[in-house]
């Protein structure tokens, strides 16, 4: 099965096709597929109201980092198929900004690896978000 970055790890500027992300981890050895959706919330950590989020990415490095995280997942949990798509541009409340799918033989690994994937992504992948609300706009740091 092809594992080029272009297929499994993507930064896109259109609504995410979550079914496509799931398809990319399909394997007859999977007993479980865990899917994480990061969605735009209506309020910031500060409690301030959010109208939109704007995401920006260093696309080439973001895709490479996502692939690296998937490699670490495979090393740590053994067999694991991983796909990630992050969206950039302006997103409204409720829209998914990121979808991660992890397929493994057993569900415990799928749950753990999926959580690990989003934690790593948020810490390391060069993608930024700007909160836009009635009280102004601010890059989240």
């Amino acid at each position, binding site marked *: 099965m092809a594992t080029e970055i272009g297929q499994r790890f993507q930064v896109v500027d259109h609504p995410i096709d979550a079914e496509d992300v799931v398809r990319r981890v399909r394997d007859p050895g999977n007993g479980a597929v865990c899917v994480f959706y990061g969605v735009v919330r209506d309020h910031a950590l500060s409690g301030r109201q959010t109208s939109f989020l704007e995401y920006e990415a260093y696309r080439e490095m973001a895709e490479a980092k996502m692939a690296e995280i998937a490699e670490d997942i495979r090393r740590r949990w053994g067999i694991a198929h991983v796909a990630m798509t992050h969206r950039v541009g302006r997103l409204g409340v409720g829209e998914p900004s990121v979808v991660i799918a992890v397929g493994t033989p057993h569900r415990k690994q799928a749950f753990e690896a999926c959580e690990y994937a989003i934690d790593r992504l948020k810490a390391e992948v*060069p993608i*930024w978000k700007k909160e836009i609300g009635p009280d102004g706009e601010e890059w989240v*740091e």
Partner: protein
Amino acid sequence: MRISVRLFASHRERLGTDRLVVDVPPEASLAELIATIAVRFPGLGDLLGGARCAVNREYAAPTTILHEGDEVALIPPVAGGGG
């Protein structure tokens, strides 16, 4: 040598450009490049602290030696965690 530095997010907005071209001596380190940027672009000021750097799409330490043609990027803090 000329080093092209990509800017994103708050850095890009602050300076009004997504790219800087900076002259540094051959074999300059990333630290020297950052110091040069801080002096030439004081508008970045407070935003430089807490920023990381990437060289050729990998996070790089300040001691990294730069070469002609390296792709350098300033990486503002990414929003981690918080749900």
